């Protein structure tokens, strides 16, 4: 199609500044609103995923076979640390790994007792795979301290204990025997994960191995990739290096609910896009229809000089496309700017208690994904074409003889 049709469409947009302004505002505000809403929503999901990865899951976990179906202290990786040192060194894309011992236990304070997840960690390695070391709010991390426990603030509150207080940790060891040890509270932590803060207790891995009677065995290896997008490749590489009786699971496989949340938000996004663009389509169609009715004589002249029906339709569709794309560009710019202005996060501390149950912190940082820019642009183009077809078909149905007489 020639440049003249594009030039005519572009200049026609400028003929009614008020009407064009209204459509541009509607498209831009609608789109910026959707973009911001999607960015905040995804920011929350993103934070849920990041929290789960940073507090507990890592990007990958390696377990003994069957741990997925029935996690238990007896399903362990023999001589785990030596195995990890041998198998996980020099893998491209692997940032860090850490061993853990993990099982259930009962924690007694003088005033209460609570069932907990007991996790033995290598303090130095753990600091590279999780946020635990950075989440200490009182006391200190486990470095160099023996017979110390790290508790979530909320758990400490349930047990009515503070840093330095004495606790007894009772567990069932690998042979099924009940056993227990006395510890002191070494530090309290606070993370964005309510579950972790309420129900987990950390101790040194060697003390954990001893408590559970594991010897050199461990429950799991946690692996962090240099980028989240490299996780699947990393999994394949690790699987190739390990023997078949170990299971390598990605964070998605370990916590399918997170994937479900991402899908759910994506689906919600489609409904929001749908609603906004249906409204937008009516607005654009209305404006173009008015524009066509105002230009009936001009359309007649175009027909008289030999512009055929196909070119007339294309001209009106181009006009709609340019109008919509202009609105899309403004909308995406405003939306992106809004997200940038909120880059320090939206403070949701008033609802923090409810949000930590989902692994969401007190500040939501909106996150724009590339598809949040691409999809609305494509949907807008489709909307522009769809919305302009009705006015365009009305235009070509006008009889040329009537059109040229029209004033």
């Amino acid at each position, binding site marked *: 199609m020639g440049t003249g049709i594009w*030039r*005519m469409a572009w*200049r026609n947009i400028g003929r009614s500044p008020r009407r064009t302004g209204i459509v541009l505002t509607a498209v831009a505000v609608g789109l910026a609103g959707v973009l911001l809403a999607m960015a905040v929503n995804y920011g929350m999901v993103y934070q849920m995923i990041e929290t789960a990865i940073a507090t507990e899951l890592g990007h990958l976990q390696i377990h003994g076979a069957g741990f997925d179906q029935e996690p238990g202290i007896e399903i362990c990786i023999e001589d785990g640390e030596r195995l990890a040192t041998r198998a996980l060194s020099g893998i491209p894309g692997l940032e860090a790994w850490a061993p853990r011992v993990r099982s259930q236990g009962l924690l007694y304070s003088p005033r209460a007792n609570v069932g907990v997840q007991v996790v033995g960690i290598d303090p130095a390695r753990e600091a590279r795979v999780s946020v635990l070391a950075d989440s200490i709010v009182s006391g200190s991390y486990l470095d160099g301290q023996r017979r110390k426990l790290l508790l979530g603030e909320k758990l400490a509150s349930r047990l009515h204990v503070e840093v330095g207080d004495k606790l007894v940790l009772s567990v069932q060891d690998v042979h099924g025997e009940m056993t227990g040890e006395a510890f002191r509270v070494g530090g309290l932590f606070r993370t964005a994960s309510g579950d972790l803060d309420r129900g987990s207790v950390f101790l040194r891995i060697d003390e954990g191995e001893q408590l559970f009677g594991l010897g050199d065995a461990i429950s799991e290896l946690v692996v962090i990739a240099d980028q989240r997008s490299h996780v699947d490749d990393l999994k394949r590489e690790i699987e190739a290096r390990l023997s078949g009786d170990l299971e390598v699971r990605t964070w998605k496989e370990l916590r399918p609910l997170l994937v479900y949340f991402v899908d759910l938000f994506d689906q919600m996004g489609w409904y929001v896009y749908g609603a906004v663009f249906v409204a937008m389509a009516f607005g654009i169609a209305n404006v173009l229809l008015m524009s066509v009715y105002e230009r009936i004589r001009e359309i007649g*002249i175009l027909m008289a*000089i*030999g512009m055929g029906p196909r070119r007339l339709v294309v001209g009106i569709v181009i006009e709609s496309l340019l109008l919509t794309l202009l609105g899309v560009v403004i909308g995406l710019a405003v939306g992106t700017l809004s997200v940038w202005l909120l880059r320090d996060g939206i403070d949701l501390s008033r609802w923090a208690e409810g949000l930590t149950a989902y692994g969401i912190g007190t500040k939501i940082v909106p996150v724009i994904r590339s598809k949040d820019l691409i999809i609305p642009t494509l949907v807008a183009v489709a909307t522009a074409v769809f919305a302009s077809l009705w006015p365009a078909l009305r235009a070509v149905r006008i009889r040329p003889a009537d059109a*040229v007489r029209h*004033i």
Partner: protein
Amino acid sequence: MSMLEARGVSKVYETRGVETIALRGVDLSIEGGEFTALAGPSGSGKTTLLNLFGGLDAPTEGVVVLDGDDLGSLTSSQLAEERLHKLGFVFQAYNLIPVFSARENVEFVMELQGVPPSERRRRAMAILEEVGLGDLADKRPLEMSGGQQQRVAVARAIVSQPRVVLADEPTANLDSKTAGTLLDLMEELNREHGVTFVFSTHDPMVIEKARRTVRLRDGAVVADERKAGSA
């Protein structure tokens, strides 16, 4: 073979159940190179006949033939092609696309014809010079007088090298001096380019200039006069 031919052409308009007969069995043949006026009072059917010749409307009965093509047998796209390549139009007023400059208005027809950009520009400027508007090539219609706009319309009508230019009361909105200049221009183009001109008009000045005058009354041809010396 005639350039334009109406054979037994009738046109009946129906508005809210009321029938108005605009043309009654008109037979008329116009040869190539003619400079013909369709004259008659308002409501005589001259504009209707011009619209039928231009394929802008279809007859209720009869056949309209342009350069050998029966317009009634063509689709709307084929009619558009016929207008693009064989016809030029000049209307009473508001002929031009307001968002285009004079040059762009003239160029646009050639763009639709697929003429390359450099040739379009050259031919548009040449024709605007010829109609005396070379200086106003970049002006938009609203920045030009009625006479200037009509001259651009004439330039646009002939730049596509059509067989026939159909002009519907081209001088109706112009003062007599401007109308005279426009007529001289069209006559000159008719003579030099051999383009057939057919006017609908009730302007005595146009009738005076025409070499053939077809008079219509109540939708029928009542007289067909040729000046001495015309073909």
